[in-house]
């Protein structure tokens, strides 16, 4: 296989672009039981050598594609699984995906390393008995900020939505889920509220906030913060931790607003129709191994639910409050939930109205 791949490389090297299409290089073996695995993951969300380690440990050639949001993953699988085995959806999408028959039940007997997970992650409301999904990483949602541009720690959502302090220097995540989540928490409601009055107030607040907000960002608030385009951004904890680590001037910070926020969990699951379910189970077991998990965490810096992996990490990681917030802070954070199709539709109508306002 490698040989064929390097042939392709040389082909390009030698013949140039124009020739690529006409030469039919045999690229895939037609073997019935393949030693292959296709992973569909977020970007920067796996250890640098994890796939290579997995291949050398099992002889299975693992390949990874990236998606940018849960919607993207969902839309892709909805059109029919084009060949993915392992996928990495967030917790609030699990229920939806299970209902849509997009996930394959996980055979726990084939994944003994589940035992490495913390007790609280061995079961979940969104997936009772964790039949379809295993905890991968978790974190919170909060405010990343530039210390030199902040008078005080920006520890309130009000500063992002209805306060002129950072006008024109603010980014929040531009999806109905996070837009409404932030506005609802600002108003003191639950992140997952479906109450029409509460959502109406949130909508008014968001429309008013548009004059202060510079951009409804994708999942790139941390980049906008790091490059100086915004001074405060609403983002996932792990993303902010990554830029804090990379920032040599030590000018960036992360805070969970005092009004509370959102707590999320990303999971690993096997897509329905996966061509290599056995390999997928082997992969799940592999990344839940303590050492392998620690290797991943060393690269991505997210909070791991894996006790064995965490034990192998240094104190700087274990005591980082941006990664592991206090129990009081966590109590203020609502886990994101699947709200059902009708509520999603209602929220989305309001979200479009906000965009058009």
């Amino acid at each position, binding site marked *: 296989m490698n040989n064929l791949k390097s042939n392709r490389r040389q082909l390009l090297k030698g013949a140039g672009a124009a020739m690529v299409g006409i030469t039919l290089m045999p690229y895939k073996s037609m073997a019935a039981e393949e030693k292959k695995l296709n992973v569909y993951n977020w970007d920067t969300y796996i250890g640098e050598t994890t796939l290579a380690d997995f291949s050398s440990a099992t002889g299975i050639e693992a390949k990874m594609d990236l998606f940018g*949001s849960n*919607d*993207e993953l*969902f*839309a892709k699988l*909805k059109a029919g699984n084009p060949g993915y085995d392992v996928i990495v959806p967030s917790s609030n999408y699990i229920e*939806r995906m299970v*209902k*849509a*028959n997009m996930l394959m039940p996980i055979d726990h007997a084939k994944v003994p390393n589940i035992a490495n997970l913390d007790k609280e992650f061995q079961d979940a409301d969104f997936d009772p008995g964790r039949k379809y999904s295993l905890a991968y990483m978790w974190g919170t949602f909060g405010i990343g900020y530039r210390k030199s541009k902040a008078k005080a720690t920006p520890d309130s959502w009000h500063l992002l939505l209805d306060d002129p302090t950072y006008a*024109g220097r603010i980014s929040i995540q*531009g*999806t*109905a*889920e996070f837009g409404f989540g932030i506005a609802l928490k600002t108003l003191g409601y639950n992140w997952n509220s479906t109450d029409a009055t509460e959502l109406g107030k949130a909508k008014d607040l968001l429309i008013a906030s*548009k004059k202060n*907000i*510079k*951009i*409804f960002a*994708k999942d790139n608030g941390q980049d906008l913060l790091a*490059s*100086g*385009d915004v001074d405060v951004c609403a983002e996932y904890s792990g993303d902010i931790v990554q830029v804090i680590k990379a920032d040599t001037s030590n000018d960036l910070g992360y805070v969970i607003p005092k009004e509370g926020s959102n707590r999320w969990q990303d999971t690993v699951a096997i897509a329905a129709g996966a061509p290599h379910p056995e390999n997928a189970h082997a992969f799940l077991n592999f990344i839940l191994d303590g050492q392998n998990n620690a290797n991943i965490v060393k690269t991505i810096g997210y909070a791991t639910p894996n006790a064995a992996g965490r034990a192998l990490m240094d104190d700087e990681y274990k005591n980082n409050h941006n990664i592991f917030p206090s129990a009081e802070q966590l109590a203020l954070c609502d886990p994101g939930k699947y709200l*059902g*199709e*009708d509520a*999603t*539709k209602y929220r*989305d*109508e309001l*979200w*479009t*109205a906000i*965009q*058009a306002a």
Partner: protein
Amino acid sequence: MDNWKDFRKVFFTLMTPGTFWMLFFFVVPMGFLFVLSFSSKAIVNGETSILDYNYFSTITNYVDAAGSSYLVLLGRAVLWSAIATVVSLLLAYPLAFAVCFSSPKWRPILLLLLILPFWINLLIRTYALIQVMRTNGFLNQALGFFHLPQTDILFGTSAVIMGLVYVYLPFMVLPLYSTIEKLDKSYLEASLDLGASQPRTFWSVTLPLTMPGVITGIILVFIPCLGSFLTSDLLGGPNNWMIGNAIQNQFGEANNWPFGAALSFILMYATFFVLFVRAMLTRRSKGVDA
């Protein structure tokens, strides 16, 4: 123009491949989508289903799509696409002209210079624009170097329009080039020889003769602008959604494909209207297409 019956073999040879392709890989898939736009999500066990639809059961999607938010977004798309098209035309026409009237040695090089950037992927180019326009980007670094005031254009309407022009300019340049290149220059000489001024020659001779290219260019730029969403998505701020973003959202986060399909068809009908206006205009002006 020949009658097809006189040259059946030639006619069918020329027509079949394109028609076949369109039927199988465009009409049939669009048919799926059309059916979907008249469908609603099925209710299974008292709960709205995620995957199952009641096909051909409702027109609610179209009724909803006529809501004020969607009309605002459509209007916004029309306005900005029009601005981007006009800017592209004003830039591309003199450029195409300059290329066509340059020496034969330079012509391919100049044309290439205009087209080359567009071979680079749209996302990469948009990302490059971001790098230039952002707060600490090249533009501000250059302005700072000359002690000029800083700008903050990224994530706003002007950035979106600049992005659209940047992305779709070649669609204007290529047809204009192709038409001006075959313009019979003796007409221009005749006009000038007979005493018409340069502007007069341009308005009375050059422009009418190159009108097919101009119209093609306008159509090729305006229409993709109208349905675009990546540019506004990546360069726009909180007030920059266009109808394309709303459609994208229905197929993405909102997971309401039937409604997204209905919005798409409304956008298509809006485009048909544009084409209809174009057909009327060409018929009245010259009939070049006939």
